[in-house]
């Protein structure tokens, strides 16, 4: 949350609620309810560490609102963020440990584990399909995000299929 908020502020000063709306617009249904409380807390932390500065702006008939802008240190932090590459997503470790350990416990069947896990993935895939169908066609970023999630899930499903092929041969 810290860096995305900094990135939104790179365009110009904004207050907390505006940032929430910017996030909503950018990410659409892929991130349906940005938590406004979380946004304010994060802004507080960013200010404390000197990456942004807030100014109280008076409003008629309403309490003051705080408008934040990026500091030089904040801009520096953003540069560093864009420079870095990110870790690859990993195989679902917990499921893998269940699969690997099931036979020796005698408490679970590997094929049954795979089938159950597949049902969960398929249900999630279905939810993602519905999300994509409901999303505004013009929100390309939201669509790319949902498609990315679907492709990861597809890989997980392919991998379950590989597990099942291998393990059924042993039976």
């Amino acid at each position, binding site marked *: 949350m*810290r860096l995305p908020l900094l990135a939104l502020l790179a365009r110009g000063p904004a207050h907390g609620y505006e940032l929430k709306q910017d996030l909503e617009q950018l990410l659409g249904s892929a991130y349906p309810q940005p938590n406004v409380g979380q946004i304010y807390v994060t802004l507080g932390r960013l200010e404390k560490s000197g990456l942004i500065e807030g100014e109280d702006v008076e409003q008629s008939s309403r309490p003051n609102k705080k408008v934040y802008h990026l500091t030089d240190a904040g801009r520096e932090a953003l540069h560093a963020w864009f420079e870095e590459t990110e870790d690859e997503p990993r195989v679902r470790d917990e499921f893998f440990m269940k699969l690997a350990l099931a036979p020796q416990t005698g408490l679970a069947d590997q094929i049954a584990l795979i089938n159950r896990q597949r049902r969960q993935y398929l249900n999630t895939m279905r939810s993602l399909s519905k999300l994509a169908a409901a999303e505004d066609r013009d929100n390309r970023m939201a669509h790319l995000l949902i498609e990315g999630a679907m492709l990861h899930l597809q890989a997980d499903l392919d991998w379950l299929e590989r597990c099942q092929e291998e393990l059924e041969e042993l039976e």
Partner: protein
Amino acid sequence: MSATPGDGSAPVLRAEGLVKTHHGEGAPAHAVRGVDLSVRRGEFVAVTGPSGAGKSTLLHLLGGLQRPDEGSIWLDEVRADGWSEARWAVERRKRIGIVFQFFNLVSNLSVADNVELPALLAGLPPKRARAEREALLGELGLAGKERSMPGELSGGEQQRVALARALVNHPPLLLADEPAGSLDSKGTREVMRLLSRFHQRGQTIVLVTHDARLASAADRVISFFDGRIADDATLEGTPARGKGISGVLELRD
């Protein structure tokens, strides 16, 4: 809501103890090894599994394109596995629409003729055949392409023509064999959207695919391994709120 008969109705399609072994070069391949399956009216069933698992063979058995070595097939509770080739050909025109991975359009007929031909063969007057064709092509976003030849269309467009051809006689059952198998990601989404739309109107669909994204459009997914049904899962209609994908994206801290 579509007004389809409820759960109590007879299955559109039923198979019992289906077995099919391919005898080619080398060892016999056991493509389908004892499959029981029942599809209710209005259901959208996807069959998924690795390539070579026998899922296409299963679909071919259900559409009468291949004959089972053992077992029985019932369409609307009429036993069908003993039908002659000619009878199957007739029934496929009326009761079963099929779409394939490579479209199988007649390359020297126009788009309009490809779609109208099965309607005319089924005995529809030319005027009605044309009206059906116009309505379907319009619906599938192909208005203006009537005079094109299949080779002039993109893969996605050809598959939509194939879909129109399969549905022109309003068959109670649509079989689809890897319908997005030769399409790009955009074409895949298009096929998915169209299958969902026809399903919502009550079309019964059996779809064979290795693509989980496509399969997730169905409300029931059968996992097929090594010629047998390994799992038969009904998918939930709506996502559980607050978990899973209520946010695809998670922004921490």
